[in-house]
């Protein structure tokens, strides 16, 4: 495992994560302004969908790279938060899925599981900061 230490790993994380978030916001705003569901050609809509996903993939990669490169305690906390977030979102996905199958609720866009994962990750990470540690 290529551990670089807390400072270097943090610097490398910020150098990739924040520009990707800025690009993501810029792409979302551009798409909102340019794309019309009814009139915009399919290939342009598909292009925006892929282009908007790309910075998010890069941001997720930055998180995983930081976890790989940072100090052992921070890594343990991050991995725990990533795992807990995955478990929470999986439980949520099952619940929503069954509510839909049994016709209790209408359709919910799959997209929302993405932000839900990041929110769960953030909450889990900061809960671990305050409570018992690994």
């Amino acid at each position, binding site marked *: 495992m290529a551990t670089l230490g*807390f400072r270097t790993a943090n610097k490398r994380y910020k150098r990739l994560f924040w520009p990707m978030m800025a690009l993501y916001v810029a792409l979302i705003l551009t798409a909102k302004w340019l794309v019309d569901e009814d009139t915009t050609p399919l290939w342009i809509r598909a292009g925006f969908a892929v282009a908007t996903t790309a910075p998010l993939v890069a941001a997720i990669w930055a998180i995983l790279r930081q976890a790989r490169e940072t100090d*052992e*305690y921070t890594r343990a906390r991050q991995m725990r938060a990533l795992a807990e977030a995955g478990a929470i979102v999986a439980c949520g996905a099952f619940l929503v899925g069954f509510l839909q199958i049994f016709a209790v609720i209408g359709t919910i866009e799959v997209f929302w599981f993405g932000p839900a994962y990041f929110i769960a990750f953030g909450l889990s990470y900061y809960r671990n900061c305050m409570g018992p540690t690994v």
Partner: protein
Amino acid sequence: MKNILRALRTERGWSQAELADRLDVSRQSVNAIETGKYDPSLPLAFSIARLFGRGIEDIFDDGLDTATAAE
């Protein structure tokens, strides 16, 4: 695992952040080790021991004496 990291650090007048800087770990790591919430890996324990010019067993105590451990 018990340790005397806090005592060694304050002896030198370092804050947790300063010690974290010297070890290139987060301040939270230092706090977790000092409070016994986290046991460092062997490489980090060696780094800590080197920084303070002590042996690992002088800083960390697993609560077992040598005779008990040998049995």
